[in-house]
């Protein structure tokens, strides 16, 4: 097992940069599960992180998603299919994890999330504030926003990933953007006063 992990780590170093930039087609690399893992780890982890705002929980959820991929590897037909599958399963698990957290009575998202400190740059503060506003959205609206602006998916692709009609996605997107705009304006007014 150790040798395999070492070889894999070498491959991973070479491919990690491409992965963060937008993903590699597994068929181009020809490495099976390992290549799918390397090509999509940034996507899966980032969806979970942007949704949960907790690095540990996000990493745990992403690991579970890849284990599920490994169990279902025989049904995966191509790198594209794997990417869609991973997006769909990650989205479902994000929703499930918040439901479970509610049942367990865990700390609310905003309370658990690190707020930017005054020492951070203005850019970091603005990004942190925006991410926090996204985290305050209801689950489904939050997921639609993440898939739209992190993954740059259009409405039909988001609909496919979430298993809901495109019209519903459009509604969620409009509602989420309106909510974010209102929250942002409220925040701007409160800081001016």
């Amino acid at each position, binding site marked *: 097992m150790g040798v*395999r992990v070492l070889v894999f780590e070498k491959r991973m170093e070479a491919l990690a940069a491409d992965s963060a930039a937008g993903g590699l087609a597994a068929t181009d690399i020809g490495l099976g599960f390992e290549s799918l*893992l390397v090509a999509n780890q940034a996507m899966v982890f980032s969806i979970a992180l942007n949704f949960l705002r907790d690095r540990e929980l996000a990493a745990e959820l992403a690991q579970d998603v890849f284990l599920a991929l490994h169990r279902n590897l025989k049904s995966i037909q191509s790198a594209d299919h794997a990417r869609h599958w991973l997006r769909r399963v990650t989205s479902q698990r994000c929703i499930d994890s918040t439901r479970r957290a509610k049942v367990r009575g865990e700390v609310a998202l905003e309370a658990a999330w690190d707020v930017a400190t005054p020492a951070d740059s203005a850019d970091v503060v603005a990004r942190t504030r925006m991410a926090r506003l996204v985290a305050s959205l209801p689950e489904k609206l939050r997921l639609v926003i993440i898939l*739209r602006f992190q993954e740059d998916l259009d409405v039909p692709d988001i609909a496919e990933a979430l298993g809901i009609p495109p019209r519903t996605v459009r509604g969620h997107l409009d509602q989420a953007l309106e909510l*974010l705009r209102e929250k942002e304006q409220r925040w701007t007014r409160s800081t001016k006063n």
Partner: protein
Amino acid sequence: MDAKYEELGNNLRLALKREDAPDGFATRVLERVEVRPRWDWWPRLVPAIALALIVATSSAGFRAVKQRRGEEAREQAIVALTLTSEKLQMARAIIFRHREESK
């Protein structure tokens, strides 16, 4: 997207930019995959199990047929012996009668 959301959209893209997974993430997944008990070996046993079942059933069937034939042969032998014994009895009786008459 509406023009009023243009700036908001750009801010969202920046805020929700993809991040690399934590260091060692892929290695940990790979380790978990390898540690997990694998159950994909059992389909390979199916032909062997099927063959063993076929051999076991056919040998049991063969034994049953052999036993039935043995029993049939035994019954036939008993019938044959009984018939022979009756014939011998009859022959003995005839001989005995002839002897008695010749006296």
